[in-house]
């Protein structure tokens, strides 16, 4: 059993406590915007916010989420108003295949919360998500645009 909050909604799910939060979110809560890419916290496709902290959910046991507030990509917008990172992503047409972008956006949203005007060096040291399509040039431009939005 695990009880936590996802995008403001309380959930109470019956899973093995070692189940990664990623799979609890995808399969038990039913939100599939958060992606599986590696399972060993290397690629960042599974990034969600746990009590406001960007966390790679594929290597984070659901038992550790007990009582926490989880935000996924589906909960980043406020109603119909997209988060400024999502808006910048659309304006700069960042996604190619898009599979890694949920995690990328969640990581960037956290960066901008901590550093509203990040430098390139801040971006380099904080955003370590893998994107095989190679969208990084647009990612960087969109981060700066979001910071100035």
């Amino acid at each position, binding site marked *: 059993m695990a009880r936590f909050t996802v995008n403001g909604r309380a959930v109470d799910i019956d899973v093995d406590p070692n189940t990664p939060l990623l799979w609890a979110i995808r399969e038990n809560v039913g939100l599939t915007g958060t992606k599986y890419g590696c399972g060993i916290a290397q690629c960042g496709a599974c990034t969600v916010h746990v009590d406001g902290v960007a966390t790679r959910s594929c290597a984070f046991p659901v038992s550790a989420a007990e009582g926490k507030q989880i935000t996924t990509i589906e909960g980043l*917008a406020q109603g119909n108003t997209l988060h400024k990172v999502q808006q910048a992503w659309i304006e700069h047409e960042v996604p190619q*295949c898009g599979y890694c972008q949920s995690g990328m956006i969640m990581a960037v949203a956290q960066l901008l919360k901590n550093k509203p005007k990040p430098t390139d060096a801040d971006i*380099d*040291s904080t955003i370590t998500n893998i994107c095989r399509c190679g969208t990084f040039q647009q990612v960087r431009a969109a981060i700066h645009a979001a910071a100035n939005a």
Partner: protein
Amino acid sequence: MNVMPKMNRRSFVIGSAAAGGGLAIGFDLPFGPKEASAQLATPELGVWVVVKPDDTVVVRIARSEMGQGTITGLAQLVAEELEADWSKVTYEYPTPGENVKRKRAWQSYSTGGSRGIRESHEYVRQGGAAARLMLLQAAANEWKVPVEQLKAENSTITGPGGLSTTFGKVAEAASKLPVPEKPALKDPKNWKIAGKPIKRFGTRQRVTGQQIYGFDLKMPGMLIATIKECPVFGGKVKSFDAAKVTSMKGVKKVLQVGDTAVAVVADTFWQAKTALDALPIVWDEGPNAKVSSASIAEWLKAGLDADQAFVGNQNGDAKAAIAGAAKKVEAVYSYPYQNHVCMEPMNATALYTPDKCEVWVPTQDGEGSFAAVLAASGLPADKCDVHKIDLGGGFGRRGGFQDYVHQAVRIAKEMPGTPIKLLWTREEDMVQGRYHPVMQCKMVGAFDKDNNLTGLHMRLSGQSILASVRPQVVEQDKGRDALTFQGVFQSGEHAFGYSVPNLLIDHSMRNPHVPPGFWRGVNINQNCIFIECFMDELAAAAGQDPLTFRRKLMDKHPRNLAVLNAVAERIGWDKPAPQGIYRGLAHMKAFNAYVAGAAEVSVTGDKIKVHRIVAATDATYAVNPAQIDRQVAGSFVYGLSALFWQECTVKDGRIVETNFDTYDSMRIAQMPKVETISMPSGGSGPWGGIGEPTICVAAPAVMNAYAKATGTRIRSFPLKNHKLQIA
């Protein structure tokens, strides 16, 4: 959900097809379904366009979207000829099954070899033009005025005396008219939608988590499977102890899949994976269990001097020129196995009943998937269908190979009526790849006493993709795999970009047991390193500037030269580089596009910093310049990731690297600034591809700059094996 169509598999054209290599590759399947089941939009104006009463334009797309923007580009081309209002344009995928039923009305579904747009632009544009003519004729009939007096623009038709209507109002009548054959096309100079940096379809759902990938499918009653195939290629399942895991929570079934794999089916992926990890499996590893990277390398090395070799390009007498040279330069290069590592691991969802088998799959080739469904289900084509899903990366892994579709159907066949979503772990994805083939290469150049290059012998030794994947094609070519010579071939879409008086490019074929595949760019990746790094070696031996040296061999290759000159000019080749910065160049013709790259790097100890890349592309036409920018920039992430980190090592017959911790990929901090020059030269010749060609210039441009910076020439890859890192 973005799932849709249906179809069948027919003919499949690889890489250097019709124009030069003659590599049109076909295979047939039994087909001939009689009934339509696709819920395609109506009314149809020919097979490519639907205009609904509300003026919505639906463009039919046969190719697959995996991030390269092909569906947007194809829709732009159709909308252009249709004279549609772009804001009303959307798209749909006819299924492979529907394509079979209609005698392949939408032609090829294959989305590889950078062919999405370049191979289909003419007939899809004709589809748009035909629909426009039908709409005009319908309006002319209604108004009883000659069609010549009517004009279509922005989804509106106007006529004499202020007559005006919209596409939607006449679409139903137009759909009953005959479809004009081979209508005239617009001069691209007059394009208004095509050729513009129009925003691609599908971005909003990709930034909100709403895009549905194959991994995300949900169906009532669905169960999840995950699988392990014998890690030694060619091995089989000997035994497994299902009783150890059948009582684990959520587990529904433990089963052998074919001779080579074992799967667990459970309520959730995590339950299935946990049980599969706990399942004792004994493998019969077969005859390849002792093969290693070292043993493969030894075998390839022997091919560098073997007597027998297939010729890909030849003029004059290279061996005589080398024997009589005043000066000879020789170098041996090698290139490793690599995995595609799509961000979304392989997957497929299958629903089997004795009457029908349907599969939902992210695929680069819906027809290839369809063929796999027929083969694995044993059902006839009219009882099968495939629903394509946009891909979380493809890069060649999801085209010619449909192993995961076979697996999903085989599992589903054991559980009739239950939808089975087969998900691979990253580990399975890494060890069951279809790998970039291994290749070694001995380069020998001959100079006369005046430092003119008089001869060149490029001897490839290594693995053929086609010998494994399309053996009948190799057989037809008397054992040769012409695809091996991509970028250095005698003619065609992968023609060599230099003229050398005495030239021999040949291949000693050596096929290890590791299954090879089409890895984005395919064989240009190694060939461009071999030829373009060696050109710098030759220039150095002749005491000449690498650009000057190349230009002397490129008189007869004006389009290669134009892109090379363009990057040289933009990078500032004729001006001194900033302190500590060194420059390198490379170019190639690939997939009918001419591409060049120039790099600026600095080297500090074992750290290489790539500061800046300039890349030029002449693809004849540029359908969406914004997407070209993105494909070209992304190509350097793909190509430089391969250069610095990526090798699949073979040990005990299997692949050692199982995840990103040992098989790294570039992060944002390491990405150089990429400046793209799109310089479409137009004309009536074949169009070039965009998604793949540029990757091949990334590594040689950087390595040529590195050699200039350090005086050291690296000839084997990846660079991590030389303790070199990217800064």
